[in-house]
Structure formats: structure tokens, C-alpha cells
């Protein structure tokens, strides 16, 4: 026993700091630490060097149970709706997704349902060009649900494999804007039962605990099938997705790693945890 370093308060503080700084939040951090302390108390972990691997193991259990995003469309057209608060990276992510599918030989149609923000349609139009996709759009101020509807009609009529619907950024706390989002989803589902087949919430990796509120309210509103964690090429670790997975069970499907068309990766929990523990 002599000479073995102790698991002391200083070590717990260091671990707490690391988890907190990664944006995991107080609740998740405390839960993880309590779990570790319990195992130490039971004698399962008796050396400081065992703590991080144990922590990693626990986090892998939370983040790694998904089967990973299945990129293959299961019916035609496969409809993906992209939502999220302002400026998180929705439109750019759609450009990347569109390219990803185009490279695999699928015919992609994009719906410019952001008819609100200045140059929202122009921005998506450029991404359509860059990714080899076609675009259905309307004039600024047009009803977003009607653009989505027209796009779905076109997707069905002209045999596209995929339809990706871009929506305007909106704060989850704005009830009328959440109603608008529900309407878009309803209109899609009415025209093509089962659609939208995927509803992706795009989160900014630099966001703090507010991401939980975002996920909660967007999920309550339209139901989220997966998260895109954008801007992970910055210095933020994106620990908020751990809290979201723990509390709401929503998995991360993709990670955005830059502003270029290739900068989208399917979520790999090992990679994610590597970066977290760097």
C-alpha cells in the first residue's frame, strides 16, 4: 500500500473541472463523479490511474449505444427536415449532407423553407449548386410550409431519392415560430405519410446549458430523430450532447468540422471521447 497515490479531493476537483469545462453541466458532472466515488468506496477503483478509463467507459455507455446514422434512404423520397435556433449551421449542414448523398449517387432535392431571413434562399441556392442538388424555392415572405409542400410534390413527381428541407433559425421559446415548424412537419406528413423520416436538430458546439432547453422544446414540438453537432472544429468540446443523451435520449448523428462542403462526419463516439479527454 505504501507509495500508491491516493484518490484525494484534489483529484476529484480536477475531474470535476475537466467535465465542467467541456460543457457537460453541473447535473451530469455530479452524477458521473458520484458514480465514480461509489465505485471507489466499494473498492472497485483503488488507483487514480483507473478513474479516467472508468469515466470513459461510463460515457461510452451513454454515447455509444446508437447504431450510427444509417445513411441509406429507406423509401423514396426520403425526407430530412433540418431545424434549430438561429445561426447554428443548418443551411451549411444541408449543403454538406446534400454533397454526401450526391457522392453516393443519390438525386437530391432541397427545399428553401427559410423564407424569412435576408438571403436565406440565396445561400441555400449556392449550396445546391455546389453539391449538385436541385432546389425548390419561393419569394421572400412566402409560407414556409407551402414551399416544403411544393418541394415534396416535386420530389415525388420527379423521382428524387432525397428531399432535405431547410428551415429558418428560430428560438425554441417563440411559440408562434414553433407552431410554424409544426405546420411544416404536418404538411409534409399529410402529403407523404411517415415523412419527414428524419428531423435533425443542429446544435452549435459552443453552446452551453441552453442546448438542453433547445433540445427539449424542439423535441416536444416536432420530435427530433437526431442531433448534428456543428462547429466542433472550434475549441468547445460539445459536452452538452452527453447531457441531452442522458436526459432526453436523443443521439448525435453527425458532427460538423468546418465550413467546407466535405466537413461533415458521421458521429463516432470514440473520436468524440478522445477529443474530450485530450
Amino acid at each position: 500500500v505504501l507509495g500508491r497515490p491516493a484518490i484525494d479531493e484534489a483529484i476529484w476537483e480536477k475531474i470535476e473541472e475537466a467535465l465542467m469545462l467541456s460543457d457537460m453541466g453541473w447535473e451530469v458532472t455530479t452524477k458521473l463523479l458520484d458514480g465514480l466515488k461509489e465505485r471507489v468506496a466499494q473498492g472497485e477503483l483503488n488507483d487514480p490511474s483507473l478513474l479516467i478509463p472508468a469515466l470513459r467507459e461510463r460515457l461510452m455507455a451513454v454515447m455509444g449505444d446508437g447504431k450510427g446514422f444509417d445513411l441509406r434512404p429507406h423509401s423514396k423520397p426520403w425526407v430530412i427536415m433540418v431545424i434549430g435556433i438561429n445561426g447554428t449551421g443548418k443551411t451549411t449542414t444541408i449543403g454538406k449532407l446534400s454533397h454526401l448523398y450526391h457522392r453516393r449517387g443519390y438525386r437530391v432535392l432541397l427545399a428553401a423553407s427559410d423564407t424569412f431571413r435576408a438571403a436565406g434562399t440565396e445561400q441555400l441556392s449556392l449550396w445546391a449548386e455546389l453539391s449538385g442538388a436541385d432546389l425548390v424555392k419561393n419569394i421572400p415572405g412566402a409560407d414556409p410550409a407551402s414551399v416544403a409542400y411544393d418541394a415534396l410534390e416535386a420530389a415525388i413527381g420527379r423521382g428524387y431519392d432525397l428531399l432535405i428541407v431547410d428551415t429558418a433559425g428560430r428560438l425554441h421559446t417563440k411559440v408562434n415560430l414553433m407552431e410554424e415548424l409544426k405546420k411544416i412537419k404536418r404538411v409534409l406528413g399529410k402529403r407523404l405519410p411517415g415523412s419527414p423520416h428524419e428531423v435533425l436538430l443542429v446544435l452549435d458546439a459552443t453552446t452551453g446549458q441552453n442546448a438542453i432547453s433547445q433540445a427539449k422544446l424542439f423535441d416536444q414540438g416536432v420530435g427530433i430523430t437526431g442531433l448534428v453537432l456543428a462547429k466542433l472544429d472550434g475549441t468547445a468540446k460539445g459536452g452538452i450532447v452527453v447531457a441531452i443523451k442522458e436526459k432526453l435520449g436523443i443521439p448525435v448523428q453527425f458532427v460538423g468540422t468546418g465550413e467546407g462542403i466535405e466537413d461533415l462526419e458521421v458521429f463516432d463516439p470514440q473520436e468524440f471521447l478522445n477529443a474530450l479527454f485530450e
Partner: protein
Amino acid sequence: ELRDRLNGAFKKILGRGKLTERNISDSLREVRKVLLEADVNYKVAKEFIARVEEEAIGREVTQSITPGQEVIKVVYDQLVELLGGQPSPLRPTRGSKIMLVGLQGSGKTTTAGKLAKRFNSQGFKPLLVPADPYRPAAVDQLRILGESLGVEVYSPTKGEDPVKLCQRACNWVQSSGFDLLILDTAGRLHIDEEMMEELRQIKKAIAPEEILLVADAMTGQEAVRVADEFEAKLGIDGIILTKLDGDAQGGAALSMRAATGRPIRMVGVGEKPEDLEIFYPDRMASRILG
């Protein structure tokens, strides 16, 4: 609600008397938790609590309030002070050049429009400069905003180098009756050395009076580092916090102010050009404390 939690923590203290290290440690733990849940940076929160403890110990709890209330008062006052004490709104002078910088998607272009509207109505003749040649349709975005406000937007040539564009705009402003330059730059990472160098080049070329970091109010723990690096690598004169119309408590405000000492000048409270307000430290303190 912090008040109830602190009163709960103090129930164990019988009688009144002075605040001691022992009897406030529980309440300080509660305060720290509130700050961390509000996204205040972990290290900033630690230092802040130490400061509060220092300030609170030895205080007499007067007859009229509870020890918990006394601690809240110290926390609130310290927060207000740390956030700047008094508002420090943007007050440009004729001929000023305002440069907006920040991470991707923080709200710079929209804020440029808001500033143009505000100063236009104050009698300035602003010129908007779209110095983002990278983001698809970024120039269109600012041009459309300018048009809706009746504010002139400088026209870059296709893919024009931002430094050259800013120099051109600056030279032109002096001879054409505009008295305020609002410069919108591309979003960039604080760790992208090439892009940070671009900002330094623009600063060197036109010497803006006001370089403002436009930051998202819901930024998490990284707020300290982002603000730190923009200050160290470029130098900023102030901060504008955006998207405060949401339910983010805004601990990033404290983190960024603590990290740089720069004032938070204005806040964005919506997507429309009129949605810009002066930053009030006391209102922000109440918001952070929930």
C-alpha cells in the same frame, strides 16, 4: 429560485449575528451551482465565489433581513460591479469606424444592420461594408438588410480581399458624405491564425475606433477562451451579446467581461433591425441569478 435555496441553506443557522465562513459555505455552494448552471465559466465562478466570501464574511446581518438575503445582496452587488456597474452604450462620433468580429453565426451581419438603423435614426449617415467574401450570399444578406433600412451598402468586387475592400471603403467614405462606417467581417475561429491575421491586417489598414466582439449569449464554458483570444490576438473595445431574447441565462456575459475587462455595450434581443438594446449590468445580474 436562488432566494429560496439560500434561505433553505440558512435555516440551519439559529439566530442572526454575523456571517461566518462556516455559516455561509452552504449558501456559497448554492450560488456557485446557480452560476455554473447559468453557463458562467468554471474558473470565473470559483474566483467570483471567493470574492463574494471575502466580501460577505464579518457582515452583520441586520434585523430586517435573513442571512440568506444578505448573501444574495453581496452576490448581486458583486455581479453588477463585475459586469461593469453602469451601462456603457455605443456612442460613436462623426467619422467613426465600427468593426464587428466574432465566431461563425454569432449575429454579426444582423447586428451590423441593427447598428445602421440605430445610428441612422440618430442622424448619422452610415455606410455598411460587407467584408465577408467567403460565406455564400453573405454580401447579399447585408445588401438586402441595407436596402430595407435605406442605408447604403458598399459594393465589393467579386471575391475582393477584405483588407483591400476596407481600405477602398474607408478612402471613399471620406469624400462622399458618410460619417459612420460599419464593417461586417466573416465569422471565424479564434484559433484560425490565418483568419485572425486577416483581422489584424484590416485593423492596421483602417484603424477602427471601435472593434466589437459579437458573441452569442448562450455560449458555454468556452466563452472565456474565445473572448481572451480575440482580445489578445486582435484587441477589442467592447462586446455585443446576441440572442438574449431566448431563455439562456447569459453567464457568458460574466465570463467574457471577467476575461477581457471590456464593456458589454449592447445586446441583441431579436432578429429585426430594431431589436438592439443597451446592456444594463443590473438587469443581466438578475437574469444570471434567475
